């Protein structure tokens, strides 16, 4: 985990796991566990987004002087995903598995494309942009805790 790419990709995998668990619990109508799992999935996602929005993206934008490029698209996709998080939370509380599974399917497509773009393009760009300061940025990233 010496690079931003490795660290952040690992977080994506953790989130994917939580997503799949939550989806399975909803499909089995194990509502209590499902509600808890959906919560931990969304928290993990928010923690990850927060690291990007508050540390990684601003530092990268300051370094490259470009705040309207890929980071802006990533932020917009975060907004789209947050809208789906809210809908999913509502569906799981209402024990509505049809709605949840449809929203989850939609989120998955969006999330996996988003992650692929970050893992294949954006993170490697940040790794090379920071050069020698990479480990400092990485430490800031790891130290950052999301405030709900």
């Amino acid at each position, binding site marked *: 985990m010496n690079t931003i790419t490795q660290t952040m990709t690992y977080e994506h995998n953790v989130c994917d796991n939580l997503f799949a668990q939550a989806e399975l619990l909803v499909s089995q109508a194990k509502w209590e566990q499902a509600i808890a799992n959906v919560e931990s999935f969304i928290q993990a996602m928010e923690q990850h987004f927060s690291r990007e929005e508050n540390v990684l993206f601003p530092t990268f934008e300051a370094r490259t002087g470009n705040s309207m490029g890929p980071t*802006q698209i990533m932020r917009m996709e975060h907004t789209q995903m947050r809208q789906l998080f809210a809908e999913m939370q509502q569906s799981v509380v209402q024990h509505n598995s049809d709605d949840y599974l449809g*929203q989850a399917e939609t989120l998955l*497509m969006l999330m996996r494309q988003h992650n692929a773009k970050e893992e294949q393009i954006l993170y490697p760009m940040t790794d090379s942009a920071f050069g020698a300061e990479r480990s400092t940025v990485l430490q800031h990233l790891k130290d950052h805790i999301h405030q709900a």
Partner: protein
Amino acid sequence: MNVANLALQQTPPLSVPLRFFLTAPLFGLFACSLLMYYGPPILLNRWNFATLALTHSLTLGVMTMVMMGALLQLLPVLAGVTIPKPKWVSTFLHALLTTGTLSLTLGFMLNYSLYLTIGLVLLSLTFILFFAIIGYCLIKVVHSHITIAMRLAVFSLFICVSLGLILLLFLTQYTTVFDPAIFTNLHLIWGLIGWAALLITGIAYQVVPMFQITPQYPQLITRWLVPALFISLLLFTLSNLTGYFTSITTILLSLELSLFALITLSIQKRRLRKLPDVTLNFWRFGMIHLLLSILLSTLTLIWQPLATKAFYPTLLGILFIGGFILPVIQGMLYKIVPFLIWLHLQNQQLNVLNPIQLVKIPNMKQVILDKQARYQFWIYVSGFILLIAAIWITDLLYISTTLLIISFSGLAYNLYKATWIYHSTSRQLHEAKS
């Protein structure tokens, strides 16, 4: 700058890919009507003109139709390149491909060289336009596994089309200088393996892990398999033209394609997402039939008389086109179409001044119902199995074709209903805005 527009720059207007996707099931129905009209003889002889009409309505009207639409959509999204004037390009390409395919198949059906010539001209124009635009974009794109696959697939299509045009010149008696049998084999190998299987492989690298949360394909595979397949196709062509080493090049192609099918099945087995999924069904069905068609063609190396049996080319064609390519394409449509519709509606909603949810955007499973997609899958499977049985028990052809008609109608219904949902929600969004 508007944030929503920034994201929309990556994705072309919905109508760009959608017109291709909506036309494909209609050609599926057209192909079924040929099966119904000509009856069992259509399965007996691959040189039959009715059989040529049938295969081209499937390979051009369904397969190439969807793959062109998908490339116009995926190039900007996966490869980060914008297609110039996407609406114009897609309108012309779609109109040319549709009319070209229709006149070619009519030419075959009626054995009428005027229609064949019109088909020849229209399809030449289609592919000249396609190669010019896509070639221009593919030269500009970032180098990645998927863009390499796209380039080699499009280049294979170029070879397939060139061979096809030469064959058409032969049929319309403009030329008689070569052996059409070898050229026909090369034409279909470059079309089915070069164009279809290479593109499917490249796209699989991206979408299989994405849809079911599976492990990634091994790096060795994503780096080398598609180039190796392409080189094997070149060797296969040489060996067929010269008559040397044909078995070796056949084995080479078979091994590489089996590797793709087996790895896809194995990573799908290790997926994190365990819920039933119709796209997964279609893809597994496709991979199994890819393996079966490879098995059948390698059997001829051990037992040569098999290749001379009348049922052999028909069975191979049904397994590869109906068992592998068409299911994979249908599986893709069930993810791409609902997702694109959701994405475009979501982007429109972000443009509405008041972001409080005035209009509810349907999620993917509301755009196309799971249950309806699953019915359509099982009807396709039954029609397909009976079609194979009909090679020997000819009476089954009518039941099988009826099931396939229901299946393509179901596909059309699901896609057209999705489009209707898009337009009605979009209208509501614009009313809410004004």
